[in-house]
């Protein structure tokens, strides 16, 4: 949980938050059996926002962002993503999933397919993109994450950092309007963390709406426009990064920050 220094200058020209609402969560509750994981979550995310979600282990961060593309089902409340309300209707769910990219802690690449096939699979089958076009787009995004030369290898032949960048490219190939990241760097060694964070910063610079669960406080400080602190299934506090780190309001936030930043 170090504070990783991000060396390069961040270009903020395109990082603009619009008035358009990307995600709206109202009064959302979720239980695992009798266990109340998420309690009365209210959150509005505008197009172009870069949100970092932080909090102690088991506080429900993963569960929250997994509810946004229906990987987990919520029992109460309303979630609207990009104008579509999440309901039990499978058509809605598939639509939202194809609009929202997700990057996992353990990459979840498909080991039986090459890197290129990993990237073209969903565009071809879900979006019905012609194969040639899908491959061109995949190569474009693989170049963007700086590994076009690995296109014909299998995931098992790549390093962790490379795999995570492929996972990001794979999501981008679906041209999502929103990207969700669930601890994308916690399974990686320090050098690899940097290459993945660089990719994420580039995405932010292009104006992508991002929700990111991470312990990389350097990233939160410099890239996020809002930091959300969760504890015990609740949103305890949210603020701009400067305020959040320098002037935390609740005791729990202070405790968490002192632990994670080590002062």
């Amino acid at each position, binding site marked *: 949980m170090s504070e990783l220094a991000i060396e390069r200058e961040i270009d903020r020209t395109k990082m603009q938050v619009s008035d358009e609402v990307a995600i709206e969560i109202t009064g959302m509750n979720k239980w695992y059996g009798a266990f109340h994981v998420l309690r009365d979550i209210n959150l509005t995310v505008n197009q172009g926002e870069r949100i970092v979600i932080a909090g102690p282990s088991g506080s429900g961060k993963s569960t929250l962002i997994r509810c946004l593309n229906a990987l987990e089902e919520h029992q109460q409340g309303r979630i609207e993503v990009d104008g579509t309300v999440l309901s039990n209707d499978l058509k809605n769910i598939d639509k939202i999933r194809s609009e929202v990219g997700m990057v996992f802690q353990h990459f979840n690449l498909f080991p039986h397919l090459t890197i290129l096939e990993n990237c073209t699979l969903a565009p071809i089958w*879900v979006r019905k993109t012609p194969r040639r076009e899908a491959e061109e787009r995949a190569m474009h995004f693989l170049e963007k994450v700086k590994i076009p030369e690995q296109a014909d290898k299998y995931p098992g032949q790549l390093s962790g950092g490379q795999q995570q960048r492929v996972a990001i490219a794979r999501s981008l190939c679906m041209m999502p309007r929103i990207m969700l990241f669930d601890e994308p760097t916690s399974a990686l060694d320090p050098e690899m963390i940097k290459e993945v964070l660089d990719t994420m910063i580039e995405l932010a610079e292009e104006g992508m709406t991002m929700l990111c669960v991470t312990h990389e406080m350097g990233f939160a400080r410099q890239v996020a426009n809002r930091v959300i602190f969760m504890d015990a299934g609740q949103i305890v506090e949210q603020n701009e990064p400067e305020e959040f780190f320098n002037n935390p309001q609740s005791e729990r936030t202070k405790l968490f920050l002192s632990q994670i930043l080590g002062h």
Partner: protein
Amino acid sequence: MSDVSFVRTEMLQEQTPPASEVGIIGWVRHNLFSGWFNSILTLISLYAIYYVLSGIVPWIFQSVWNANSLTECREIMMATWGSTHGHACWAVINDRWLQMLFGFYPDHLYWRPILALVLLLIALAPILYSERVPSKLLYLTAAYPFLMPFLMWGGTIWGPISAALGFVIGWGVYTVLSKQLSGLLGLVLGVLATVIWWLVLSGYVVGAMDSILPIGIEAVQSRQFGGFMLAILLGVVAIGVSLPIGIVLALGRQSDLLIVKYLCVGFIEFIRGVPLITLLFVASLLLNLFLPPGTNFDIILRVMIMMTLFSAAYMAEVIRGGLAALPRGQYEGADSLGLNYWQAQRLIIMPQALKISIPGIVSTFIGIFKDTTLVSIIGLFDVIGLSSAIRADTAWNGIYWELFAFIGALFFVVCFSMSRYSMYLERKLQTGHR
């Protein structure tokens, strides 16, 4: 010839440096005599191998190939080696091998099962060696299930065409209804339409078409089928059909739909809990009680259905093992990209689950192929049944070993090929560690 000793001294000079560590001597020392205990085991094993081979090799090779009866065989043995002990009488195979391969199939029609077998190998090629064979061959693969029964049983050409039409009708009903109603209802009604067509309507249509335009080849009755051909026929059908059914059952067992789930669990557990031989007796005797009198439900078809269901239940469990071995992240990865259930299954889950299950799947294949010999108990003349029939003939009364050695060799060739293919496939699908 006397130059041999000269050549040997040359080689010795070249071999001296590594001496006992490399080469054959080194290998032998490391692997066979690396300690007194290993040395003793090696000697015992060598003696056992020698003992077995010294019995079998002369039996196989000092044998009689031409004779018309066992008695004649023994006379030749007495005349040649002075004893009948330790010599095989292959004359029985020489005399009856066609019958052991084809049963009572009419001999002027042997070309039909042979052609069916050749076509089978060609039709399998695009599946087994997908990247080395033109994919156009898949059309033959698709046509084969209809072509094969036509070749084997003969009769009117309208039979297989009408059977194929059943699929077309089912598909048509499914595509129309799944758009207008729900996908599941469309599927159920599509299957129902196919079954109704096969069981009720197609009989009349085939009869009518046959009287208008009688095209066909000579018909062969099921009771004329037999020999190793029958094993291959039953094995191929059971293997080919049980794999897809097994996949569906394995998926059904994991389904969230409770009715589907418990139907699948019930089916799998019932079939696995019952010996195959009972199912075969049900096929041969009991089914007649339930079917309306006068229905002509072919015995081989009944046996095929039972063997297929039996092997499908095992297949389902093997594949379920493969599914369970997949990390949850694979499902989530597929879901998060917006793939629907069937796409995720077909493109992501099944290719990996099947790959993991290859050894188990092939074991099930081999098992069901060998279990085809059980049909001899319900009176079909497969190779085992025929070997009894051959012994019942006074000429060959009392001959056992040669017949069973031959049958064993036939099965071994097929089963060993399957096993080797599965190893090739596992190597081919290896895509680096995860």
